[in-house]
Each structure stands twice: as C-alpha cells, then as structure tokens.
C-alpha cells in the first residue's frame, strides 16, 4: 500500500480505514464467480459489510425466478378496461357526489372545472371464463385468459402526477434517486445467466406521451452494474456494443484484459467499488457481443408464434415484438424484463384513443402469457400488467354522449398479474359503486412491491442497502405482503 497525496484532502474517511476494509474482499474476488454476487462481490461493497442479512438470500424458496413487467405508462383507464361500474352509466352526466370525492386533491387540469359529470364507460363489459371476471370489449384476447390472471382492483398510490407516481411504483419513492425494482432484484439475487444483464428494458418505439427517464430503470445508490440495460429495436440493440471497424474480437479481448489490470491497480490504490463495477460492465459488454444478437434474432420463430402475438410482432420495437423478445429473454433466464408502453394518458378523446392503445397491447399480452404457459415458463415467471395510477370517474372537460376524458386518479386503479406463485382466476379488492374509492382490501404500491419481492423469495424488510448513513429498502418503511395473492 502506498500513499497518494490527494487522499489526505479527504479528512472524513481515513485512508487506512478505507484500505483495510476494502482490501478484505479483494482476495475473494474473481470475475468468473458471479454465481452469488453476494459472496463473491459483496465484501468489496465496503458500506455494506455489515449487511449480513443479504448473505442469506433468498430468504425462502422462491415461487418466481423471473419477472416480466408490462408497464403501461400514462395510466390506463381502469373504468374502461377492467373495473365495471354500471352505476356510472346509470348516472351518466350527473355530478359526482361531494361525499365521494371528499378531501381528494385534484390535478390542476380538472380542479378548476365547475362540474364533475360522471362518465360511464362507453364500452361493453362482459364476464369471462370460469372465474367470471368482468372485462371490457377493448381487451378481447386478454378476456379469453382471465382464468390465468389475478386482478387487483384496489391498488392505490400517493402521487397524482405521472413522474412521481411512476418513480413511486418503480422505485418505492416519489423522489428520484432510489434503485428500481429490477436493480434491487439484480443486487439481491444476482444473475442466472452471466452472458446477459439481469435487468433488461424494452420500450415500445414511436409512442408519444409522458416521457420516460432512464432513471426509472436506474440503479440509484446501488453499484451501477445493477442498472437496467435498454435493448433497442433495430441494428444496434445495445448501443456501442460492437467493436469499432478494424478491431477484431481477439484484439478487443486483449485490450480489455490490459484495461482490467490497470483498473485493478487503480482499485487497490483508491478502493472505489465503482471501479469493480466498471470491470464487470466491460466483461458483460464483451460477452453481450455474442449473446445479444443471438437473443434478438427472431428468425427461428415459427409463423404460428408470430400469429399468436399478432402482426405487429414482426415489426421490431412494437409492443408485440417486445413481448416476443421478453419471452426469449425469459428463456435465457434474464431476471427482470421491464417493458414500457406509453400513450395511456387520455385526458380527452378517451374512447377513441384507448381503442388504439388496447389494440396495441391486448393480443400480445395474452399471447405472451399463453406462450409462457405452454412452454412451462409461467411456472417460474411472474407477468405484471399495469400503470402508475388510475383515472377519474368524472369527465375531464366536456362530457358528451360519445366522448369524454379522464383525469389522473391515485385513489384506485387496477393491475393484473399471472404466473409463478400467484392465484389464478381471482380478483382481489374492489372499488365502490362510483369507482372512485376503494371499498375492499386496499393494496398500496408498497404492498404490491412487497408481494413481488416475496414471490421471488425475498423478505422485503430484509433486503437493504446502507447509503448516506441509513439502510434503504425498496419499500422504505412500508409495505405488507398481500397474502391473498399467493397461491
């Protein structure tokens, strides 16, 4: 150990402490052994040396090994898709009773309205399957598989605007800066396939609506190898992955090896754990040069599979194509696959716009679940479909017999899940007759997150990371597992 002058500037953390702690883990470190990053790598995360709970992962035998989260950004209207409220049709155009709205804060977009006319859905609802789940005509394909689904109709959240609400459901906090669900899982459970990232993000191309920020799949304060990696449609699925022209694979490998040596010297010198992350990122990138093109290639898929997912599935970057890709990634044991589909934020013209949205997602969602099922993958894969909050029962703007809009509504919304460890053909929770408040079994976003972790074998109260003097977890200080969901 030698001494660098610039370290003396940092009076808060003694160099000696630093090196003693970080060098402990170095001996055990080997790049190849990523079986359990907790054992191989956890030691070097000097801030978390004491987090012995993490060593015992998973906390119990998991039901799910992987998650596909079909995130519907913009907040789909539960009242036009799943949550059947004939009362709203009966009272179409009448004011929402004051007692129902209560103290609810409204967004600036509709709080100035003189009138809050109730807007019953223009779409036909029917019961489906043996479970008798109500579904609107907008989702004909999903309607056919309701007996495989678990609906939660009593979800609620704290935030009323998109960005905080999305940040909330993805990271457990309205404020940016916390790790995303997928990052927590990557940190806690490690990889099942070291040739691909644990956390992959697929965004539907060409959609407008609420912006998506990469921090939604960010690692927050966790080491950066746990961040989500976005796979794009088109030639370069992962940016800057290919070798520059004229550089062969052999040269590249040699170059990376030399670079690693330099990085190790640097790490021994200043002990920044992010240097190790960097090494593993380079390694991952190198391996992905072959694994990514392989997994992105759908030319082997038979025609009937494309038929199943719908015609969009042949057009890379669409929701359907991403669903098909998600299945391929699941087959490769990628742990967390996050899809984003934007455009559900229908403040006006809802009946027209939601049709288009539903058409884009319905068939592929149902196809994905069925395809996973026939391959036996639904046994250990959890599929989630849902947005960040719900939409109001009253019309934003003028209510017409054939047109309305709906504003943001955090008090209730619907999501559905399918697969590993989740009960089939069941609906949990209910809203009141006006579809405004929860009448039965409220499920907070943190409860949903706790349940998700539980299905993966994690006690959400035990998976923590110490940062800035305190231990953080996905659910912060909240969250209860929704036992009713568990099969």
């Amino acid at each position, binding site marked *: 150990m030698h001494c660098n002058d610039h370290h003396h500037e940092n009076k808060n953390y003694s160099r000696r402490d630093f090196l003693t702690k970080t060098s402990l883990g170095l001996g055990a470190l080997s790049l190849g052994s990523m079986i*359990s990053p907790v054992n191989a790598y956890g030691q070097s995360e000097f801030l978390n040396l004491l987090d012995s709970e993490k060593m015992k992962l*998973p906390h119990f*035998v*998991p039901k799910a090994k992987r998650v596909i989260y079909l995130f519907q950004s913009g907040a789909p209207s539960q009242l036009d898709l799943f949550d059947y409220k004939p009362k709203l049709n009966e009272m179409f155009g009448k004011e929402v009773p004051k007692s129902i709205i209560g103290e609810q804060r409204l967004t600036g977009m509709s709080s100035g309205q003189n009138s809050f006319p109730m807007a019953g859905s223009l779409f036909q609802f029917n019961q489906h399957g043996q479970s008798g789940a109500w579904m609107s005509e907008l989702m004909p394909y999903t309607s056919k598989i309701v007996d495989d689904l678990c609906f939660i109709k009593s979800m609620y959240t704290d935030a009323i605007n998109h960005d905080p609400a999305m940040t909330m459901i993805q990271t457990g906090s309205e404020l940016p800066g916390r790790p995303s669900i997928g990052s927590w899982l990557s940190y806690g459970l490690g990889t*099942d396939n070291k040739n691909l990232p644990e956390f992959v993000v697929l965004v539907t191309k060409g959609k407008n609506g609420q912006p998506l920020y990469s921090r939604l799949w960010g690692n927050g304060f966790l080491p950066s190898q746990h961040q989500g990696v976005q796979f794009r449609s088109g030639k370069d699925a992962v940016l800057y992955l290919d070798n520059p022209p004229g550089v062969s694979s052999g040269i590249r490998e040699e170059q990376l090896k030399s670079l690693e040596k330099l990085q190790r010297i640097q790490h021994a010198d200043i002990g920044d754990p992010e240097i190790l992350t960097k090494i593993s990122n380079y390694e991952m990138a190198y391996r992905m040069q072959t694994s990514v093109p392989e997994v992105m290639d759908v030319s082997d898929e038979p025609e009937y599979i494309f038929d*199943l997912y719908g015609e969009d599935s042949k057009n890379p970057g669409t929701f359907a194509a991403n669903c098909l890709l998600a299945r391929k990634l699941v087959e490769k044991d990628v742990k967390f696959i996050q899809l984003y589909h934007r455009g559900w934020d229908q403040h006006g013209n809802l009946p027209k716009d939601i049709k288009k949205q539903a058409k884009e997602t319905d068939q592929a969602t149902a196809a994905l679940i069925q395809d996973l099922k*026939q*391959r*036996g993958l639904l*046994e250990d894969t959890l599929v989630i479909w849902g947005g960040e909050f719900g939409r109001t029962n009253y019309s934003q703007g003028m209510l017409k017999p054939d047109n309305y809009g709906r504003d943001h509504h955090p008090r209730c919304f619907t999501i559905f899940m399918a697969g590993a460890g989740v009960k089939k053909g069941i609906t949990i929770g209910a809203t009141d007759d006006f579809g405004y408040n929860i009448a039965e079994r409220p499920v907070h976003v943190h409860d949903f997150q706790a349940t998700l972790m539980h299905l993966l074998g994690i006690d959400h109260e035990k998976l923590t990371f110490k940062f800035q003097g305190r231990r953080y977890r996905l659910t912060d200080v909240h969250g209860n597992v929704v036992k009713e969901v568990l099969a």
Partner: protein
Amino acid sequence: MLTEFLDFLGSLHPLIVHLPIGIILLTIAIDVFMRNKNNSVHRVITMGWFFTFFTGLLAALFGWFLGDNGYYFESQINIHRWSGIALVSLSFIIWVLRYINFRFSKPFNRSLNLTTIILLMVTGHFGGEMTHGQNYLFENLPYIEKEISLVKLSEAKRSKADSLMVYEDLIHPILEEKCMACHNQNHAHGRLNMSAFESMVKGGNSGAGIKKGKPYESLIYKRVSFPHDHPKFMPPAGVPLSYDQIATLEWWIDNGAEKQIPVTSVRNDAKIQRMIEMQYGLDLKEKTFLETLKLASPSPERLNSIQGEKYFFRYLNPEQSFMDLKFTKKEIKTKDLINIQKVKKNIVWLNLMDCMLKDDHLSYLNDFPNLTRLKIQKNPLITNKGIEALKNLENLSELNLYGTQVSDAALITLGQIQSLKKLFLWNTRITPQAIADFKAQHPDIEIVAGL
C-alpha cells in the same frame, strides 16, 4: 351456609390485601426517612407495624378461604400463600419487639425492613400471576415478543403440527386450566369429572357433558358460553374462557367431539384454522415437500464436480442446501451427468432443456431423491424409452417434456409417478385423446399441452 359465607369472605381478599401493603410501605418509609425520631414518631412506627399485622392477618385469612374454594390449583397458590403467612408472622414479631421496647441495632432494623419488603414483593408478585396470568410482569415491555398463546404448546409440539390432536392438545389443556380445579377425580363438583375424556362426555348431575355433533345441546359448551352474569355461567370465578377457546370447543363438538380428531382437520374451516394458528402460534397450512425437507449444504468436494462454465446453479434457501441447477451448453455428455449426480441429493430443480439430451442420459437421473422440478424440454432425441428412468423420482411434481418425441405410451410410465402435479406436453407426439384419458384417470395432474 358456612361454606358460602367463607366463600364470601374469600372474595374480600383482593379488597383487604392492599391495606397491609400500603401500611408496610408507609411505616418503613417513616422509619427510614425520618431522622431524629422522638418518642411519638416511634409510637407511630409501632402502631404501623400493628396495623400491618392486623390487616395482613385478615388478608391472609380471607386469602386462605379464597384458595380453599377450589378455583385455583395448589401449585399456583403455594408460594403466595406461605410467603403471605411469613409476612404476617414477621410483622407480628416486629410489632411485639417494638411494643416491649426491644433495642434494635441499626443493621438489625435495616435487615428486618429489607426482609419485609422482599417478602412483600414475592407475595405480591405471585398473587399478581394468579389474577393477571403467568407473564403479566413483562408482557407489556417494549421489545418483548408478545406471548399470543393463552394455553401453551411446547416448541416440540408446535413443530409437529401434523400430529397434534384437537382433544389432547387443544381442548384438554383449556379444560384443565379453566375447569378441572373443581371438576376432577377427587373433587368432582356436581359429580362432573372432566379430567378423563369418557367421564367428561358422560357429564354429572345436570346431564351429559357433551352431545357429539351438537354443541348447543352440550352442557359444557352451554355453561361456558352463557352471559357472564348468568347464575350457571362457568367458570364461576377467575378468567372465563376466551372467545377463541369457546369457538375451538364449539368447532370440536360440532365435528363429532371424538378423541382422535387431528388438528389439521381444521383446514375445513378457514376461520377456525386462522383462530387456532393465531392462538397457538401454529402453522396449519398444508406443506409442500420442500417445506418439510431438511438438508445439509453439499460438501466442497461435491461442489467441485459442478464447477466451471457448463453448470450454473443457485441456492433456493438461506441454508444453502436446495440447488437449482442448469446445464448451460448446447450439448450434454455422459460425464456431465455423472458430475451432476455428485450433488443429486441437493438438486431440487434441474434444467437440462435444449442440450441434445438422449434417452441413455436419463438413466443417470433415476435416483435424485429430492428433485421436484425437471425441465428436459426441447430435446428432440428423448423418447418413451428414456422416460422409463424417471418413474423412480419419488418427489417429482413438475415435468416439462415439450418438444420431445414422447408418445402416448409415455403417459403410462408418467402415471406411476405418485407425486406428479404438472406435466408439460406441448409439441410432443402425445395425442389429445390420450391426454383426455390420462386426465380422467389422474384428475389431480394438470396437463399443459399447447393452446
């Protein structure tokens, strides 16, 4: 008449008992804190000891009557009774010594005061245990795990919930605590002896104790569920049966009131199951094989055989003994299977999909005792012949065969696997008719064979 009067006096015990407590403390306080005592102070102290003795004597006497009426077990009262009597005797001696102006040395006086206080605390504590329950003292401390169970089950019994009996482990202890002080072999009030099953069912002077299947006609159930001010309400003194205990009793009688009903049969009633789970800290949920399996981690030598890029595994439990293993390469060889065999005890999930697995290879999988999930899909060389080897996997619950060449005859082999719950047969040669027949024969096995 006399007994009733004595019972009445007994019930005055809690009222009287706090008088000597207060007087002792006040007397000792005066003795300790007043310096330069003149004669009248000394007289006050002597008087204090007299009143301590006098009220203490009454309390002890009433306490004796209360203890004698049979609502408490001797084992519960013993220490309380005798330390109380010692306290009264001690206060009598101190009073007499003070009265005859015996000269106390300072240390002697201090030790007398101290002994009195200690005796007072002991007596008070055991009295408190009787009225407020065994662990009243610490139960409300923060950070103390609250004892939920009113009637305790030993840790050993709790861990074997499957072998518990409703009567022996739940009902009998409740009756023992609440009823048997008065209704036992030697002391059968109303000629009812509840200490044995048969005599309890038979009942006493008022009629049959229990009518099997009819809780509302069973005297024992009726008496404990009366309004508390009903003259026939039982138990007449002490803490009544809790709501949960009464409900447990009701459920048991309703379900036949047999001696040999296992506790697990409460699974027929979610409400009572939850109630009993909470009350006794039990987990009565039906356990899967893995939930009951206890295994040690594989030894380093055994682990050595599956090192390297070809094999990937992770542990599924914090004890690091259940392994989920997959083969990562495109083509598996016999020696790979021999390597995997080295950790066969620990493998609970095994994934050998899409790796050119052959029929011969499967014979290496025939004795994986804890394997519950086997994925050998997308191996087009697998036929019925290979499947034969799998019928010895006695804990296999899930088998994925999609994309193999198995045909209808394989179902006969698969039907022999008793533990099988799920079967994936998409893209095989198995016909829909064979699946329909198999489903009829094995309604518990779920088959997924495509859309």
